[in-house]
């Protein structure tokens, strides 16, 4: 045995080892399978989310008709005698917050992105990048605290008709929260417009603003739009800021100065309260969660579509 092995060259020995099904060979075959199973976890998570929402929502629609859910404009789940489940007030609450947040964040975010990409010195950029990263890293619970204890009192000093819980203060703070998303994604899009394109515009005598508005902005439009849609999607799903500062009154009124409830803050209200497992109220959070999921998913798909479909290739 020993003699035969000595006659093999080192390479042959290695090949021998490889094809003899030794430990090495077996682990080479097992490892990809193990890694694939790990990759399957994230797929299973998606399936888990979708199935959970569908099944529990289905149970909810056994108690409450889907027609009532979609068409009634009142949401009174805690009434013992006549509970009404019409999703509209919660959707409206979410839309109010999202609208205020976008009105606040989109102009500021795009202005910051244009400044950093077209005007700022590399020193300013070096200072602003970490500031935006910190803003992006601040937990939403901290923003919620800031909305309730700083922005709301400030608003009430300026406009006494604003109530303690309102749409404006959490709306603005959700806007602050999504500014870093809009800035970093749209700045990436603007900076990736090639330098010769920019220099070409400047060389024929355009000012920086003319270059930015007529050359850079159109060229980066797909990335800019995608950043806005992603920011809006984050605003729709934001939970803690609205739970803390927007109140818990489902309202179908268009008024922005009084208490309201969003889809997310309803889920928080039910799960912090003591609605027992198996009650209609318990299942209602899944129906609301499902509606929320459809909203954010369609925004994310839209963002992907925009950045693929309208990308300018250089």
């Amino acid at each position, binding site marked *: 045995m020993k003699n035969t092995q000595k006659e093999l060259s080192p390479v042959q020995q290695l090949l021998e080892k490889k094809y003899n099904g030794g430990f090495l060979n077996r682990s080479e075959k097992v490892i990809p399978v193990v890694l694939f199973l790990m990759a399957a976890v994230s797929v299973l998570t998606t399936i888990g989310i979708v199935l959970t929402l569908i099944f529990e929502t289905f149970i909810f629609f056994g108690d409450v008709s889907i027609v009532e859910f979609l068409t009634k404009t009142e949401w009174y789940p805690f009434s013992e005698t006549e509970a009404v489940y019409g999703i509209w007030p919660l959707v409206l609450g979410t839309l109010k917050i999202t609208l205020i947040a976008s009105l606040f964040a989109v102009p500021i975010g795009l202005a910051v992105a244009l400044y950093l990409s077209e005007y700022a010195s590399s020193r300013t950029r070096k200072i602003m990048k970490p500031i935006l990263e910190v803003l992006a890293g601040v937990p939403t619970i901290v923003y919620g605290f800031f909305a309730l204890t700083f922005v709301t009192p400030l608003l009430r000093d300026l406009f006494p008709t604003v109530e303690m819980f309102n749409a404006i203060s959490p709306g603005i703070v959700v806007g602050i929260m999504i500014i870093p998303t809009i800035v970093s994604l749209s700045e990436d899009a603007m900076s990736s417009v090639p330098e010769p394109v920019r220099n070409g515009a400047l060389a024929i005598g355009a000012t920086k603003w003319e270059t930015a508005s007529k050359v850079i902005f159109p060229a980066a439009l797909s990335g800019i739009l995608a950043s806005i849609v992603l920011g809006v999607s984050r605003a729709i799903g934001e939970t803690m800021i609205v739970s803390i500062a927007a109140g818990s009154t489902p309202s179908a009124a268009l008024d922005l100065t009084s208490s309201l409830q969003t889809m997310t803050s309803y889920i928080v209200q039910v799960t912090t309260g003591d609605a027992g497992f198996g009650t209609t109220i318990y299942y209602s959070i899944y129906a609301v969660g499902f509606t929320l*999921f459809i909203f954010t998913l369609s925004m994310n798909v839209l963002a992907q579509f925009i950045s693929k479909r309208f990308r300018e290739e250089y």
Partner: protein
Amino acid sequence: MEKVERINSEEMVGRIDGRLAKNKVVKGLFFAATAFTSIILIVLLVRIISQGAPYLSWDFLQNFASRRPEQAGIKAAVIGTIWMMAVVIPSAAIFGVGTAIYLEEYAKKNAVTRWIQMNISNLAGVPSVVFGLLGLTIFVRLFGFGNSILAAGFTMALLVLPVIIVAAQEAIRAVPGEIKEASYGLGATKWQTISRVVLPYALPGILTGSILAFSRAVGETAPLVVIGIPTFVAFLPSGIFDSFTALPMQIYNWTSRPQIEFHNLAAAGIIVLLVVLILMNSVAVWIRNRFQSR
């Protein structure tokens, strides 16, 4: 087609001032927006520190939650967060890096791989409150973990998983092909190349991305609320099946009380939370700068 306007050089010179002025105004506006964004951060930090700092004390870190604000502390919350992260970090790191290796090194470029990739980027956009509903249904109810450290840790791990996968994929993709080829050339197998060449090279990038993802898990509140993590806890957990509370939950509880004293406690709790996050981020930045020059 736009009609071409012809002007003589005199008119052109006359317009330059206006165009330059416009550029200046716009630049000023953009600068103001940038300054405003930084001011928001400064106001936020100054406000929280001035409100919370007087309440920070050794007792605050040592005491349990209490109905009396002067005796309340965050011991249970800090220890609870550490326990939760002890579940989140290993589970999310192993599955996140494993998935990234599979997608970058083993997966064939086919429809299944594209679908997994698309699924991961969509998962990153799912609101955290929906992850809470998943955790409530699967971990709390179906697996019967209750509102334990394990249920919360697994829910948070799933929440940060997409972020870690994407960061690890980028780090693995950045490994130069020559190094891998050199390893194969020496006769190393695929797994030997991955484990002894690719992963060590990609490690700083993976660590930076993962630490940022974990700092998100430390501050995330909504999933914990949904899976029913209690806020009034006057004991320390002794295992992963125990009930617990976490820093953001304690801050949320204090914030939602009407009394100003509790708001001050919340500010003090936020300072502790922010210090933890800043430490984690500093480590990430340090690793990034230390290995970037390579």
